[in-house]
């Protein structure tokens, strides 16, 4: 119970900070950075659901991110579909494509799945890059509208857009939270742990993997659609491997398979890479090795490491309690015996 209370308190503090951020930080640049990082976080939650909780590394997610973004752009600009209808359609269409990819890709396992999805991701990139007529190709795609008003709510200002993205991020975190602590989440974790064991426990691994993959693609496509309406310009590079690499970096630094990981990792890495901006492309010379070291020595990321540290401390405390109890029992039995001695004597 105490743990839950503490977690609630932390969540309340974080929520308050996130809500107050635009008031505390008036610098427009930081507001912009934070809003973008919310978009990355949503995408990384998508990746985390499947890679972190279900155990399959999908490398096609940058591609799904781009499909979500481009579909929103094409529907609003070329087809003149009202914004929110286009928004929902973009997510649903990407999710449908994801389901079709999943049906085939999930017949493979482990690194074959990673390689297969890497290929899918690259094909998506190529299609966007080469299909000039639809996507604008390398010239890019411009003129995507900002989110349309919903009744009295307008999303034209940066602050309003910040809150809109915060809303979507909170919704995704909420869904992830409910999922992870549910029978369905436990089912995914069981599949990640051992597919053979899960099967013999009566779990339909294929059905569950597909559901998890589809929801994971949905989150990432949502991030893509939000990106399109926030940046309002798209180039094929958002489907490129480097974006996939960014997602993975955020997830691994924050902690794969943890609820806090995507937030922690995205914030930390985007902040650090801002600080190292003067190094330009040489940043990777630092990032690459640091990431490698992290994966070798700290494979659970920051959030995962923290959880493990707490578990270890708990275990140490329990062992100490047990030892104390044993000593006390020994002492009591000795006393009992000496009392008997006295009586007998």
């Amino acid at each position: 119970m105490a743990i839950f209370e503490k977690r609630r308190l932390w969540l309340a503090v974080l929520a308050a900070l996130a809500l107050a951020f635009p008031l505390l930080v008036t610098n427009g640049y930081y507001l912009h950075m934070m809003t973008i990082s919310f978009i990355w976080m949503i995408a990384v939650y998508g990746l985390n659901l499947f890679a972190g909780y279900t155990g399959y590394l999908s490398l096609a997610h940058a591609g799904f991110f781009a499909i979500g973004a481009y579909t929103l752009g094409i529907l609003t600009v070329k087809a003149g579909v009202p914004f929110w209808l286009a928004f929902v359609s973009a997510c649903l269409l990407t999710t449908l494509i994801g389901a079709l990819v999943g049906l085939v890709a999930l017949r493979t396992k482990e690194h074959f799945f990673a390689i297969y999805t890497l290929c899918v991701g690259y094909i998506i990139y190529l299609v966007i890059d080469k299909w000039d007529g639809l996507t604008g190709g390398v010239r890019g795609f411009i003129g995507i509208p900002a989110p349309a008003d919903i009744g009295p709510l307008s999303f034209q200002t940066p602050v309003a857009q910040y809150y809109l993205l915060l809303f979507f991020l909170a919704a995704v975190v909420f869904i992830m939270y409910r999922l992870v602590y549910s029978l369905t989440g436990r089912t995914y974790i069981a599949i990640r742990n051992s597919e053979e064991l899960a099967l013999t426990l009566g779990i339909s691994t294929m059905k569950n993997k597909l559901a998890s993959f589809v929801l994971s693609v949905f989150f990432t496509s949502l991030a893509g659609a939000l990106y399109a309406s926030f940046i309002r310009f798209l180039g094929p590079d958002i489907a490129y491997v480097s974006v996939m690499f960014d997602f993975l970096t955020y997830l691994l630094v924050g902690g794969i398979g943890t609820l806090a990981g995507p937030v922690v990792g995205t914030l930390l890495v985007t902040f650090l890479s801002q600080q190292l901006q003067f190094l330009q492309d040489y940043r990777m010379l630092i990032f690459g090795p640091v990431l490698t070291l992290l994966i070798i020595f700290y494979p659970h990321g920051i959030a995962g490491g923290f959880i493990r540290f707490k578990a270890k401390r708990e275990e140490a405390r329990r062992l100490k309690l047990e030892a104390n109890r044993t000593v006390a029992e020994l002492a009591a039995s000795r006393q009992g015996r000496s009392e008997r001695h006295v009586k007998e004597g």
Partner: protein
Amino acid sequence: MFLHVERLTKRFGGLLAVNDVTFSVEQGKINAIIGPNGAGKSTFFNLISGLYRPTSGTITFKGRDITRLPANERAKLGIARTFQTTHLFEQATVIDNVIIGHRLRTSSNLFDAILRTKRHRREEQACKEKAMEVLEFVGLTGVADRIVANLSQEQKKRVAFALALATDPELVLLDEPAAGINPDETEGLEELIVKMVKGGLTVCLIEHKMSMIMKIADRIMVLNYGEKIAEGTPEEVRNNEAVIQAYLGGSAIA
């Protein structure tokens, strides 16, 4: 007949891991399978539990042909198993490992989970209660909240038993439960297996520890190079010349 396999064969390339084995599991008994390393015992379990498709032969369970049924459907019919290596989620608590064992008896889905429906709450409760019930049965109530990685080998085996029991099985396949366990603790596992059968379960047991087999098995089947070379009571098998030859000729056995 409870579980019956007829002329079951499994071929891996040029290797006949299980070769033309016909065998019946008797209900409410401890049915043991022994044989030298590599004899095909684990493969036999993989065929019964549905992880492998047989090359030929049939498997019937309670009168129903399950030869083509996927593993998860067989679990729902009441066939549970443990693995030679436990396959547990070592970084999670005992209870968190065992709760998923009852998942197959529930039906709530992704949307139930997100919306926290009544059905989800009820089924989650049922899974937790089931987990506590089987943990009590295997004698692990005291360590329910401990991390599996911190348990002894014998306790981990008990967790694996609990997980299998949480599926509400009728037949439990145990693959070398006493491997890597010291003699005192082996006795504890023997008692647990006997208790399972007394509780109405049917057990099929692969084990290398002969003292254990001779003590608790009702019937024994002996495999060698994938073939059934003997079958009978512990007394009969002990005195069977072919069995002795198989063990002497094969790899050393404890």
